[in-house]
């Protein structure tokens, strides 16, 4: 605003009246001077004529002295006049200059120049806006006629200021149509005899500047609203004055100090930086300011994280990204930046790192080998935990560096199976859990339980395989032991059955046949001799008794009917005998078992039904039992149900010898079948068996 006042000299400084001050107070006109000089000339001429006609001096000495005095005075007077004339000339020249300046002001094409009275009525105007006639203004219109009502007050105040105080002022007002625009006016006093008689107005159209200014203000407001409200600190720093030009309010929240304090002392910023980080921060700042500009007016610094000590003493982490702003000459004039509070993020990262390190420790200390592998058929290891070295003798680097190593170290007997399982695992994405042997570098064979999952990306495509390998050599040994026990058990069952079969046949074929022979022979002897000694008759009875016993014993041991006729006749026969021997009625239902099954399946099924019915007769205390035996393409099913006493499964299982349940289970397990018992005291018993069967076996 000040420059508006300066841009042209103020008219007040120009003289408004031509007056030359006289020397030594009194006023002497030029004309009077000239008259006096002319008088003196006339007197001197007369004296000279008189002195020339007489030899004796005509003029007394005293008179000449007077004349000389007068001339001296005249000369002095003249000099004074001359000086006065020079001063007058100079004054005129100044006046001319001032007038020219005025003329230029009044005639300039930008400004309206007017003279108004106290009421604002136009006395003079240099030119008028288009469409307004000069004669309509002078003495008629006032400044108020060209000012939007909102600005009448400002106008009034400006005029009062000029007229009352005699000082110039400036104001801006909006002029309505037909002028239509923003105008800035310099108003100054016109003084006559020390009194303000009128006011000069120099008015310039400032609409363009005003628009720019308003746009700028609006833009600044927007930016300020933005910067004031962001949670990050935005700052603008003047490198020359080393002052903070702007800092967003977030500074107070993050640093804990007030923005005002920072304005007063820009060094407060650096003071808040943690002393361990200060040096680097300053180095970075120096580097940023010194960096070559290139063609750009901005130079971005690298993001940088550092600690600050808040006003409350707490340490916070911030992340700062600065950029240097250059002027047209390429010198850095300002540094701007954005500072973000990353304390939480930092803590989170730290927690993660701690968790990771804990996890890593777990992975690397647990007695299992963890691995991450590529999802290929060879499960090429990307990472393997260090336990691998202790277990298998290969270093981590060796294990991950040699793609086919794992595959090669699998025990040859397991390799094909394991690779097929891996292939299936990759194809289906089902979790992998497999048991196999790995050969260590030294040739030791170790059993591993390998469990892995396929990790897929968002689209479902396999990314990596994560797995663990647990050395289960001891457990595997135990299992192998168990398998041996099971095999032994199977062998035992087989031997038992074979032995029974052999003894049964022996009884049947040898003893039974021998008795049969004896039986016929005794009869023949009886017939031949006609006599009927009691002893012979008694022998015949004994032989018959013996034959029956042998037959029953043989059946009990191993019914040949099972081998000869198959499961269904054997079961029918057995149930018939069972009903003859016990009070229990048996409902036997069957379906699809007229075919032959594997001898082991038939034997097992037969023994299961036999054992179950024995239990019913022995423990159930019922008069009725139901036996259901059926088969489909896949399995042979047996279900024996009674409505009797039932039993406490737990206790009975603990006492294997009592009810043969354990033996039954063992037999079923040997056929890879499942045996289930449902029972509770007083609620009867249901025994269900399911055994896989193949197609009908070939018979010899």
């Amino acid at each position: 605003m000040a420059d508006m006042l300066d841009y042209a000299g103020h008219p007040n400084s120009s003289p408004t009246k031509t007056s030359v001050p006289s020397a030594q107070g009194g006023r002497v006109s030029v004309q009077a001077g000239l008259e006096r000089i002319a008088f003196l000339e006339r007197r001197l001429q007369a004296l000279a004529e008189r002195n020339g006609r007489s030899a004796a001096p005509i003029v007394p000495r005293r008179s000449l002295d007077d004349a000389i005095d007068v001339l001296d005075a005249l000369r002095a007077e003249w000099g004074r006049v001359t000086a006065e004339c020079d001063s007058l000339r100079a004054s005129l020249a100044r006046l001319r200059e001032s007038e020219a300046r005025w003329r230029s002001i009044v005639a300039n094409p930008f400004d309206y120049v007017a003279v108004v009275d106290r009421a604002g009525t136009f006395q003079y105007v240099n030119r008028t806006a288009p469409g307004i006639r000069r004669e309509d203004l002078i003495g008629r219109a006032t400044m108020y006629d060209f000012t939007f009502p909102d600005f009448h007050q400002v106008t009034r105040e400006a005029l009062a200021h000029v007229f009352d105080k005699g000082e110039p002022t400036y104001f801006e007002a909006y002029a309505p149509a037909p002028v239509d625009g923003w105008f800035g006016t310099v108003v100054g006093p016109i003084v006559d005899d020390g009194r303000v008689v009128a006011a000069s107005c120099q008015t310039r159209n400032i609409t363009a500047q005003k628009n720019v200014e308003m746009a700028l203000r609006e833009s600044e407001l927007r930016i300020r609203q933005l910067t004031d409200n962001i949670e990050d600190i935005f700052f603008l720093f003047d490198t020359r004055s080393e002052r903070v030009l702007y800092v967003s309010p977030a500074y107070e929240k993050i640093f804990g100090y007030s923005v005002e304090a920072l304005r007063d002392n820009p060094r407060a910023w650096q003071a808040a930086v943690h002393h361990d980080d200060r040096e680097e921060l300053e180095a970075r700042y120096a580097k940023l300011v010194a960096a070559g500009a290139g063609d750009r007016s901005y130079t971005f610094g690298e993001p940088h994280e550092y600690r600050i000590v808040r006003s409350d003493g707490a340490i916070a982490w911030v992340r700062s990204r600065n950029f240097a702003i250059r002027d047209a000459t390429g010198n850095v004039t300002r540094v701007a930046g954005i500072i973000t509070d990353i304390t939480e993020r930092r803590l989170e990262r730290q927690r993660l790192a701690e968790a990771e390190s804990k996890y890593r420790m777990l992975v690397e200390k647990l007695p299992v080998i963890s691995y991450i592998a590529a999802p290929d058929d060879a499960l090429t290891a990307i990472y393997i935990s260090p336990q691998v070295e202790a277990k298998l003798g290969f270093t981590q680097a060796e294990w991950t560096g040699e793609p086919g190593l794992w595959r090669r170290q699998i025990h040859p007997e397991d390799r094909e199976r394991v690779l097929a399982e891996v292939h299936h695992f990759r194809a289906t994405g089902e979790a992998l859990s497999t048991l196999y042997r790995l050969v260590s570098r030294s040739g030791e064979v170790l059993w591993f339980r390998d469990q892995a999952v396929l990790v897929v990306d968002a689209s479902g495509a396999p990314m990596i395989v994560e797995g663990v390998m647990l050395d289960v050599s001891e457990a595997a040994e135990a299992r192998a032991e168990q398998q041996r026990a099971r095999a032994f058990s199977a062998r035992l069952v087989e031997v038992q059955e074979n032995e029974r079969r052999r003894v049964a046949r022996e009884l049947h074929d040898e003893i039974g046949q021998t008795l049969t022979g004896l039986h016929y022979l005794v009869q023949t002897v009886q017939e031949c001799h006609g006599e009927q000694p009691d002893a012979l008759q008694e022998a015949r009875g004994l032989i018959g008794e013996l034959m029956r016993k042998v037959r029953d014993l043989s059946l009990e041991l191993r019914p040949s009917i099972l081998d000869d006729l198959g499961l269904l006749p054997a079961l029918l026969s057995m149930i018939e005998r069972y009903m003859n021997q016990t009070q229990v009625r048996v409902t036997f239902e069957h379906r699809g078992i007229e075919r032959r099954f594997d001898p082991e399946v038939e034997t097992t099924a037969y023994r299961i039904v036999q054992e179950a019915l024995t239990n019913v007769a022995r423990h159930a205390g019922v008069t009725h039992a139901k036996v259901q035996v059926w088969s489909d393409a896949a399995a042979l099913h047996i279900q024996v149900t009674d409505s009797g006493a039932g039993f406490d499964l737990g206790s009975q299982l603990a006492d294997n010898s009592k009810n043969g349940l354990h033996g039954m289970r063992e037999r079923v397990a040997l056929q890879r079948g499942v045996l289930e018992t449902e029972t509770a005291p007083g609620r009867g018993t249901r025994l269900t068996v399911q055994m896989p069967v193949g197609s009908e076996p070939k018979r010899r």
Partner: protein
Amino acid sequence: MSVRILLAEDHKLVRQALKTLLEPEEDLELVGETGDGMDVMEQVAKHRPDILVLDLMMPGLNGLEVTRRVHQRFPKTRVLVLSMHQDRNYVSKAVQNGASGYVVKHADADDLLRGIRHVAAGRRFFSAPISEWPPESLEPLSSESLDLYDTLTPREKEVLQLVAEGHKNAEIAKLLFRSARTVETHRAHIMGKLGLKNPTDLIRFAIEHGLIPVSPVSVPETEDGSNDGGESSP
């Protein structure tokens, strides 16, 4: 004209006893003997006996199978089984395979002689106690008697019904106050017992057994009573 007999019996003592037994009988002529199942056919082919007295227990070829083959290839030779077994399954099987008579070994010697003469005369003969059995006991094995639906426990029947009606495991669990896991186990048992592979099989089974109407649209709910497998337990 005497009856020509071939004796097939692997036990020497018995064979000897039988020979001794047959010798005094003038109308019975022993034309040959063998102790091996495989050899029987050859002997029959060679001697063409009227009667083959056959032990079921023979090395080489099972007596039941010998009976079948002889009956097929030499229908004029009639088979009289002489066996330790008095199980009706054996008797029935022997009869099915073409035996004309069955004498248990512990029967009186007279029974055997009478049997030979009866069979030679074209009649059937069974020694005691077989002769006392009802005739149907010798008929082929009793036919299939099991309805698969009856193999299910009352609880399994309930679950099957609900599954067939389209309930999800979780719903069934709520309805029966059981855990979903228990229901899942029941379901697995049902599938296993009934030999079903998938839910479609299960629905088919349910329809076949009238557990659910064939078409829920055409059959009113009230007529859903054709439950041939019996109602669920009380």
